[in-house]
């Protein structure tokens, strides 16, 4: 029963034209990045630039991680907020939510179906970006194992494992943002409000994290956890920051899901 609801939710999401357009846009990102770095060529100055950008030349397997790492700041939260907005606010706008609320299905279960749809689609989108990143990176930049930030070279198999780990970590961040967006989505009938609220929050968080005088606030911001995920590219992997980021996102997931459930339960049809 529940698996059928999960299935129909995902099918329903995939049928929306904007989902297809969104996925298509996401797929372009790794291709553009690989192409851009390939045309920049290997000039004598070496990679240059901070972080992964410096080691990406000739290191195609880094492209998926680089792409996801960049997209996590704006693009992926935007996509998560769109799906969360469609999930409840969008249905309310079309009047289909009313039918779901009066149906003899528990509202908590309805929320979990929505959350499942969000998770499945996030995982799908992130994996799709990573796979295209691997292909485009290998095609444009070549690959011979994966060079880490620590200067070691991992075999292709281990490199793919790192990419898989990063996919899971990024998806979790995305779902946590989506869960908070779902809570907003449960309060309104206007999907745009959900997207605007979510994106404003993410941008404001990122601005706030630029002020050293607000350093007491930084541990509470979900965006604080993003840069630490780059530790996947260090060898051996230091788990400290990755754990912290994931726990931080987990707290947001709990808060978002809890608030959304409270709102749905008390909602009068």
């Amino acid at each position, binding site marked *: 029963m529940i698996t059928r609801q999960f299935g129909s939710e995902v099918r329903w999401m995939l049928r929306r034209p904007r989902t297809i357009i969104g996925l298509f846009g996401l797929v372009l990102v790794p291709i553009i990045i690989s192409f851009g770095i390939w045309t920049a060529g290997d000039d004598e100055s070496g990679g240059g630039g*901070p*972080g992964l950008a410096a*080691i990406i030349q000739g290191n195609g397997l880094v492209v998926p991680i680089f792409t996801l790492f960049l997209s996590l700041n704006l693009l992926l939260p935007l996509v998560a907020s769109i799906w969360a907005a469609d999930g409840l606010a969008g249905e309310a706008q079309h009047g289909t939510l009313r039918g779901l609320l009066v149906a003899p299905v528990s509202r908590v279960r309805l929320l979990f179906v929505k959350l499942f749809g969000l998770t499945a689609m996030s995982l799908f989108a992130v994996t799709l970006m990573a796979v295209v990143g691997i292909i485009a990176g290998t095609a444009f930049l070549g690959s011979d194992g994966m*060079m880490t930030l*620590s200067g070691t070279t991992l075999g292709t198999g281990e490199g793919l494992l790192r990419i898989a780990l990063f996919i899971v970590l990024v998806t979790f961040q995305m779902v946590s943002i989506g869960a908070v967006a779902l809570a907003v989505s449960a309060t309104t009938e206007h999907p745009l409000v959900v997207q605007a609220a979510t994106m404003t929050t993410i941008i404001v968080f990122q601005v706030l994290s630029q002020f050293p005088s607000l350093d007491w606030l930084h541990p*509470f911001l979900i965006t604080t956890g993003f840069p630490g995920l780059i530790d996947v590219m*260090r060898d051996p992997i230091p788990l400290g920051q990755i754990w912290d980021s994931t726990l931080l996102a987990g707290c947001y997931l709990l808060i978002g899901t809890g*608030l959304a459930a409270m709102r749905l339960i008390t909602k009068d049809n």
Partner: protein
Amino acid sequence: MNKRKVTLAAAAAGVITGAAGLSLLAMPAGAGQPPTLPDVSPEALVEQVLTSKPGAFGGTVEVDNKLGLPSIAEIPQLADGKHSARIWTDGNGKFRAALPNGQSEQTIVNDGTTTWAWNSADNEVTKSEHKADEPKPADEKAKSVDPAEAAKQIVGLTKEFSEISVDGTARVANRAAYELVLTPKASEKTLIREVRVAVDSELKMPLRVAVLTNGTSEPAGTVGFSEINVGPQDSKLFEFTPPANAKVTTPEAKEQRADRKPELGLEQALQGEDPQIFGTGWDTVVGARIPAQAMTQVPAEAQGLVDKFTKKVSGTWGSGQLFTTKVATILISDDGRVVAGAVPEQVLFDTIGQVK
């Protein structure tokens, strides 16, 4: 109806748990109860620290730096603020250090015959083969973040000039440790109030060093393990193969390149061929003379940087610029004499005349 209340309560509990989790994550980790350890005499502890052979270990080092240094040093871990580094050693001279700098990383590996220094920011490996017993700059850099090495040096240099005591116990990186305190004797003219070294109760290896200066209760600088696992380490950690795409250079070649940073001139002068040492103990002053040629080579941009962090001073010894941090003072006279030490400025004014 009742079921609805239960689910509502469960959802509310979820929100509260999440919020509580956020505050827990934001809180700094507590130090935990200080362990109870058998008494030990300070002299014996110092002796054990100096003779201890740490053996193989791997760990994460947290550096908390409030020294007031501008972040121009080549070691990002020494700039103001909190930093972390990871170090591994096999106990027989091979080691690996990973120094993250933002999203980049420097890795230094000593595999026994060669020291490799990798910097991800410029995709470059510096390879220095060990010829004689001369210390390699990269080795020194890696050791500067090792609390055990730092503490050994401090204790070795200052024990004769300090009151030594054991001030209770502490828990560092989940290991029981004694707090060894070195307080400069009253005759020492220094900025430093005391140095606290947490010494592992089993291995007698320093786990944390904190430097406290006059007039503050918070340490001006702390270097300590936040996590350590003692025992044999994966031997692969002490091997390094330069990545296929990386440039491999030697320190000599790097030095000849034109893009050398001007601020290194001062560092080199102080570490140079013949630094002159004045005094002993805590108020030791190191002096050197920067070649006149190097003084005029400083580009205007770097000069601006120097001016920003220094104060103009003059006296019977001449005139120059004074650079003050919480734990050290550096005086550079206009004719190229440099003196530095963990001392108040007056001591430097008295000493600079002796620089040859």
